[in-house]
Structure formats: structure tokens, C-alpha cells
């Protein structure tokens, strides 16, 4: 009898685990696994070449250097500096990102030598005239979205989970996104973005994944195709470096002034 009670108690405690997972739980479990696999990189630096292509195929480029700092329990810190186009050379952005609180952002304007705190409400605006919005390139944090597992699907020969995410932060330009995450390494392979009217706005594809420190996968090519205006933007990443010894001190607003 006594054993019977214990068995019953144990059963009650673990019942949620043996029950069928809901689509929300499965979605969150997948994204949590993806997030866990990308923990512990500490800091990184990389160079980015951004190519903007309009409907007629005319191209223009931007060159950016970026450093990032992993912040445990909060959003990451990032500092980006423009090399091209030449008229904005030396312009630098500093971001302290947060999960649900607004990010803190500063810009350095080299002509005036002015460091300016800017509003981070501009989530949906284009980054430097590209098809990437600010919210597309900001640091990923689990609480920023709600998650729903949709289905399994083979994408370009890879077994993938397909998730639906809905932004939980203010000022997003999207109602929802669909994410393809490969089952073997939990890397994002594709994102479909749906605008505020719930129609397909953009498709982002991730390619040329390489692994660093035997753990961290980074896509070296990202393409964002706008399905509504025919424009596209390609990001080519090079020169990834991890654990270079960056600290909080490298992400202060005073650091903006001496970026070149």
C-alpha cells in the first residue's frame, strides 16, 4: 500500500513528461536546444560585406566590422564600424541588447566627433538601406518570441524542424516568422518573414556554415530576398574569430570615438 502511494505520487510528478508534448512545448524545446548549443562562445569578431541589389540588378556595397560579447542572462553586446560606403566611414554603432526591455544604442558620427544615444524603437526599419531590418540582425534571445512547432520537412536535402515564431517585443514589423532548423546540428537554414498584414514579406537563406571551436556554427552567407519589392541583400561574413579576449571595457560608449 505504502509503495503504491509512492508510485502514484511519482506518476503524478512525472506525468507531464510522459504526456504528449504540445506544439508550443516542442517548439520551445527545439529552440532551447539550438540556443544551448550556441552558448559559451564568450566573444567574437568578424568582417561583413553587404551587397544590396535592386530590382534592376544594380548593386551597391557596405563593409562593416563587428565585435560581439556574449552576456550570460541578458542580451549580447555588439559594436559595428562602417568602412564603406566612404561617406559613412568610421560611423560606429554600440548596442546593449536585452530580451524584452528596449535595447540601449549609441551611434558615433565621425564628422562631428559626436556620440549620440539613439532610440531603439526602430526595430522594423531597414539597416543601411538594405533588406535586413534592425530586428533581423539583433542578438537572438529566447524570450523575444513565442514558439510553435509546425512540422518536419526536408529542405535542400536536410531534415529540418519547421517552427513558427511570433515576436513578443514591441515595434516589430512582423506578425510571425517560419524557421527551418536542421535536425543534425540545430542551425537555422531559412526564415520566412510575414509582414503586419500577415503576407509573406521576405525570405532569408543561410549558407556556407562552418564550425568554430568544435562547437559553434556560423553561416558565412546570408541572403534576404524581399518578395514584395524584388530587392535583395547578401551578407558575406569572413574572418570569424572567437574568444579573442574582449571584455565589457571594449563595449563602452567611449570606445566608439576611436573606432576607425
Amino acid at each position, binding site marked *: 500500500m505504502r509503495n503504491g502511494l509512492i508510485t502514484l505520487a511519482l506518476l503524478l510528478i512525472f506525468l507531464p513528461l510522459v504526456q504528449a508534448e504540445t506544439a508550443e512545448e516542442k517548439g520551445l524545446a527545439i529552440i532551447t536546444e539550438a540556443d544551448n548549443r550556441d552558448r559559451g562562445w564568450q566573444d567574437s569578431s568578424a568582417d561583413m560585406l553587404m551587397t*544590396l541589389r*535592386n530590382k534592376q540588378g544594380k548593386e*551597391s*556595397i557596405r563593409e562593416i566590422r563587428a565585435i560581439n560579447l556574449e552576456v550570460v542572462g541578458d542580451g549580447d553586446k555588439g559594436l559595428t564600424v562602417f568602412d*564603406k*560606403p*566612404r*561617406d*559613412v*566611414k568610421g560611423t560606429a554603432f554600440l548596442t546593449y541588447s536585452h530580451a524584452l526591455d*528596449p535595447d*540601449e544604442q549609441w551611434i558615433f558620427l565621425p564628422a*562631428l*566627433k*559626436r*556620440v*549620440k*544615444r*539613439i*532610440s531603439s*524603437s*526602430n526595430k*522594423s*526599419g*531597414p539597416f*543601411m*538601406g538594405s533588406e535586413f531590418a534592425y530586428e533581423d540582425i539583433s542578438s537572438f534571445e529566447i524570450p523575444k518570441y513565442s514558439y510553435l512547432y509546425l512540422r518536419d520537412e526536408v529542405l535542400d536535402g536536410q531534415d529540418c524542424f519547421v517552427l513558427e515564431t511570433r515576436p513578443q517585443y*514591441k*515595434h516589430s*514589423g512582423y506578425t510571425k516568422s517560419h524557421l527551418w532548423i536542421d535536425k543534425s546540428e540545430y542551425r537555422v537554414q531559412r526564415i520566412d518573414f510575414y509582414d503586419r498584414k500577415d503576407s509573406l514579406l521576405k525570405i532569408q537563406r543561410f549558407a556556407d556554415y562552418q564550425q568554430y571551436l568544435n562547437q559553434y556554427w556560423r553561416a558565412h552567407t546570408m541572403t534576404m530576398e524581399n518578395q514584395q519589392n524584388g530587392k535583395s541583400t547578401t551578407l558575406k561574413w569572413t574572418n570569424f574569430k572567437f574568444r579573442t579576449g574582449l571584455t565589457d*571595457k571594449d563595449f*563602452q*560608449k*567611449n570606445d566608439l570615438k*576611436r573606432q*576607425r
Partner: protein
Amino acid sequence: MKITIAVLLLSLSGRLFAGEWSGYSAVDYRYFFHQSPYEEPGQHDPAAVLAPEYYHAWDNDNQSLIIAPFFRVDSQDSERTHVDLREFSWLKVADEWELKLGISKVYWGVTESQHLVDIINQTDQVENIDGEDKLGQPMINLSFFKDWGALDLFILPYFRERTFPGVDGRLRSNPPVDTDSAVYESGAGQKHIDAAIRWSHSLGDWDLGLSHFYGTSRDPRFSADLISKDGFIPFYEIINQTGLDVQMTHDSWLWKLEVIRRDSKQDTFTASTGGFEYTFYGVFSSDTDIGVIAEYLFDDRTNGLISPFENDLMMGSRLTLNDEQSSELLLGIVQDLDSSDASWNLEASRRIGDRWKLSLEARFFKVGKPQNPLYFVRDDDYIQLELARYF
């Protein structure tokens, strides 16, 4: 100062070919809508600018050298044709401190309509009357970065006189300023050693700065009694100035305040600028942002001849298209609340291709009060087009 520069030159000459050059050259054309009331100046003013910058870093980027000369050739005004060394400095960066030696530029403050707190560099007035173009300032600048904020210490060993248009230039007083005859309160003149200290910090939504400056005022005084055959003689007094700048950033709001208190032998006064900028992002389902700016300008000096902004309101709008060409436009009106005097300012720019930029600037003055210092430029409404090439 000469010795410092010589030492810098000697120790760094070997590195001069290792770094990188960038910068821009530009041609601009100013058209003044009215004839000048002062006979000599014309209505058309083409000019050319060259602003190269050399940068070299070594020691794991912990040391760097910047050299940035500036050249302008103006077709009308020989005073506006000028050369300046905007920057020539060596920077050493450590974990918790930085040391900068040489000629450099420093910006303090948050507001848009005027820059009260910003005092380290002298204004290059012939470049533009908006006070945003600055002359290079020789300095020793030691900065400390701590948990409680950043502390900047400045020794400023040489004073730069403000530039003013000559007799053939527009946007000048009448008579013009006799820049060759400047008078100083200090017997040391331009060699008076000025000093400044500033603490700045970010706390959540708040960005704060508190500063103090002791030395030669960047703003010269003029009086009808101090005049030579060539014009007004600038008088540079010794001042103590304490400045506070605060910005609160929340959602799409930027709330801004700058306050200064300045003491000199002649007088003591308080001036401030305060207001907000609110931005509507992605208006009309487009990528365009529209910002609305309002700032109140206050100065408790009753003599309007010193400052044009003793009780004024600035209203402005910033249009950012967020397009591939980074097109933007800023329109501002400063209205004197005690009279009908006002000035209108328009600045717009757009990149062309990857290396060119086209800028438009226009200013209009509506000044009826002879006590307003802008009365001198009441007929100097102008529009300027500039084409710059970046390299």
C-alpha cells in the same frame, strides 16, 4: 607646443607610409538671394574643399596616429580661404585609461539647435554659422574609465581664435571683425593654459555629463568702443564655465537638456537649451522616419547683442528615407519669442553611387530688431549646393 609636435613628427615619421588615407574633396556653390547691404560682397560664391585623413594604428591597435588637415579655397573671401590642422594626435589606449596628445576635436552635448556645453574646440565660423565646424585644438587629454563613469581631464596649452569672414565675405558683421587685432584679458594671450574636466556616464535610460572649463572664452566679446580701422576687435576674456548635459531616451522619445553657468570679470550668466525629439518610424507603411524636434533656448543676459537666443523656440523636423542613398533632410525654425525675428534652416543630403554625396543647405533670416546680432546678416539668405567625393 612646437616641441611636442616636433617630437611627435620625429618619432612617428617612420610610420607615415604604413597607414591608410581617407577623406573627401568637394566643390560647393553658395547663392545669396539679395545684394549685400555692405557693397563689397557679391551674390555668387563658389568654393572648393579638400579634407584628407591619415590613420595608422600599431601595438595591437593600442596606439594610433591621426593627421587630418583641412583646406578651403573660396572664390570671394580671402578670410574664408583657409587651412587648418583639424587633427594631429597620438592616442595610447590601456584597459582603464587613454592618453591623447596633440591636436584634436572633442564634442560634448546633446541638443540640436545650439551647442552650449561644447567648449573645447573653437568654432570655424567662416565654414558655417551653425557652430558645428571646429578648429583643431592642441591638448593633453587623459581619460579614465571606471564603473562610476568616464572622467576626462584636459590641458589646453594654446588658444585658437575664432575665424570670421573678411570684408568681401557674406554672413559678416559691419564693419567686419578685425581678426588680426584680437585682445586678451590674460597677459599670456593665446598661450594661456586652459583646463577642463568632464564626467560622463550612462545609467539605464539616462546619459549624463557634467563639465567644468577654466580659461579663455571661445566666444569673443565685441563692443562699439573696441574698434579699429579694419573693424570690430575681438576681446577674449577668462571664464569659468560649468556645464550639464542630460539625455533621457525612452521608446521613441529623446528628452534633452543642456545648461551652462559662465563667470567672468564682466558678468555671470546662465543659459540653457531643453526639449525633445520624437520619431515616427516607418510612416505610411514606408521605410521613412519622421522626427519632430522642439527645443527652448534661454539666456539670462539681457543684452541681446551678445546672444541671439535669450528666449527662443526651435521647431524642427528630420526626415530619414532609410533608402540605399541614405537620403535625409532636416528643417529647423528658430523663433524669437519676444519679437517676430526668426531664422529658417534646411539641410539635406543624398549619396550618389558609392563615393559621391550631394548636399543642400539653405538659411533664411527674418530679422527686424537691430539689437539682434543676426541683424547684420538679415540680407544674407542663401542656398548652397555641395558635391563631395569620398576616397
